[in-house]
């Protein structure tokens, strides 16, 4: 069974790669896209700099290296988006292209198909991250120290936990048949609330309370703490345990929601409606 699942995942990756490289403009652009998001924030930071230093930013975070802060946020945020879009949007594309029913007729569970759809997205995001890091370092300069392996180990449980979230988003797409808005808003809100591009200590109290309840916040915070030595919300080890707990619970709950939604859609017969 596992072998069959792996074969299916491999087939999905190959298909996604084929579609991706069929549109070379898209493929080239994906490499440079993060620069377009980072450049405006760089210029925003310039407009606040005193003698080339982000003094005000240091008061909140303990570091003046705003660019490193942003690059790390953008890298982690890239992985969050890859999972959410890779899983949620794939269903909508299949609905539009009229192939979702035939895919569901294969003896491969939906969750395996969704994992397959997310993997190519993650591969491209990883390439993106490397390219972004290099280009931003070249253009704007930043320093992230030498504890990269430790940061990667912290990132892994967070990435796995995101699959649970991805399953939940995919279930929502199946029920509402409206992928763009759901994924766009969830992704954006998650990034804002978990502090992708700013320390959450700037948030008003009511919103900060929500941020502190999101495990992703501790992912961003821990990785920045490791790489930049910035002030963390909780001790690093506690943040790591929160991420591991999030991984176990998130995947379990997301999976249960997806299975129930899949059954509901099959019963109602509205799989391909859009």
């Amino acid at each position, binding site marked *: 069974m596992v072998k069959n699942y792996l074969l299916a995942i491999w087939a999905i990756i190959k298909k996604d790669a084929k579609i991706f490289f069929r*549109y070379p403009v898209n493929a080239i652009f994906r490499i440079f896209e993060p620069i377009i*998001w980072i450049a*405006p924030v760089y210029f925003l930071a310039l*407009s606040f*700099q005193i003698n080339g230093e982000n003094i005000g930013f240091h008061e*909140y975070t303990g570091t003046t290296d705003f660019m490193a802060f942003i690059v790390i946020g953008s890298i982690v945020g890239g992985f969050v988006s890859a999972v959410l879009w890779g899983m949620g949007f794939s269903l909508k594309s299949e609905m539009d292209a009229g192939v979702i029913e035939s895919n569901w007729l294969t003896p491969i569970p939906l969750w395996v198909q969704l994992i397959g759809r997310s993997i190519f997205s993650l591969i491209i995001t990883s390439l993106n991250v490397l390219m972004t890091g290099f280009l931003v370092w070249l253009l704007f300069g930043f320093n992230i120290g030498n504890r990269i392996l430790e940061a990667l180990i912290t990132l892994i449980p967070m990435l796995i936990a995101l699959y649970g979230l991805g399953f939940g988003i995919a279930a929502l797409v199946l029920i509402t048949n409206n992928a763009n808005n759901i994924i766009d*808003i969830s992704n954006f809100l998650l990034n804002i609330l978990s502090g*992708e591009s*700013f320390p959450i200590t700037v948030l008003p109290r009511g919103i900060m309370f929500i941020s502190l309840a999101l495990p992703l916040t501790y992912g961003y915070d821990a990785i920045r703490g490791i790489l930049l030595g910035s002030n963390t919300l909780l001790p690093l080890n506690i943040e790591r345990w929160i991420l591991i707990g999030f991984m176990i619970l998130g995947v379990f709950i997301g999976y249960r929601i997806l299975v129930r939604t899949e059954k509901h859609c099959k019963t109602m017969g509205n799989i391909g409606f859009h």
Partner: protein
Amino acid sequence: MLNGAFAVFKREMKIMLRYPSWFIPMLIWPVIFPLGYLFTAKALSGTGNTSLAQFQNFAGTTDYTTYMLIGTTIWMWINSMLWTFGSSLRVEQVRGTLESNWLCPIPKVSLLIGYSLFQILISFVFIVVSVLEFKIFFNFEFIGNPLLAFLIIIVSIPAVYGLGFVFASLVMWAKEANSMVFMVRGIMTIFCGITYPLEVLPNWMRNISEFIPMTHSINALRRVISSGAVLVDIKREIYILIISGAILMTLGMIAFNYTQNKVKETGTLGHY
């Protein structure tokens, strides 16, 4: 031609109303989109607003909230226009309905005019909703004349939709909407000073900014809304918007006609 455009308008309205969740993003985006920039600006200002004086030196104001809200609203308008023009033709290619629409004995540009009418209506509602929400959530103050701000938006329409026509042609060539939208809106984000004063850009980038009509729309709106500028103060921007609108509309028509002839010759209209 107008009948065709009106039919497209009606169809787009029908599709939009078929998905009743459309109003949720319209309510949510104006509030949440600027938040990332606003909180970043707050973090950059420092706990005691240490760095805010530096921002004031460049932007002429310490009120970065109003400054950014104006920029992000125009950005969201352009973004929505780009998605409408980029994805409408593309979705029809994917669904296989583009060729049947193209066979209708109407000028093909009426398809784009129909999309434009639909988009203008949606954008108008969006801008009104945004201003109301800004008042509620961000204490947005309108110092200048709201009618003058409305005039700036009206004068910007030909430039915005001319750009949309060029964009629709590009998407038909490249057969890829997403990356094209990301590229054009990315250029706007960097060069038009959506969230920061253009004074921080290197000279060569500022020169490019001068050629983008939206830079002038944003500048004029900021001066009217935040500083209470009157018509005489922004006449340079108004002239630039009128001239660039005429140029972009003409370019848009030429690009669309050329592209439709090309895809018919090569038989690639429905390819995606």
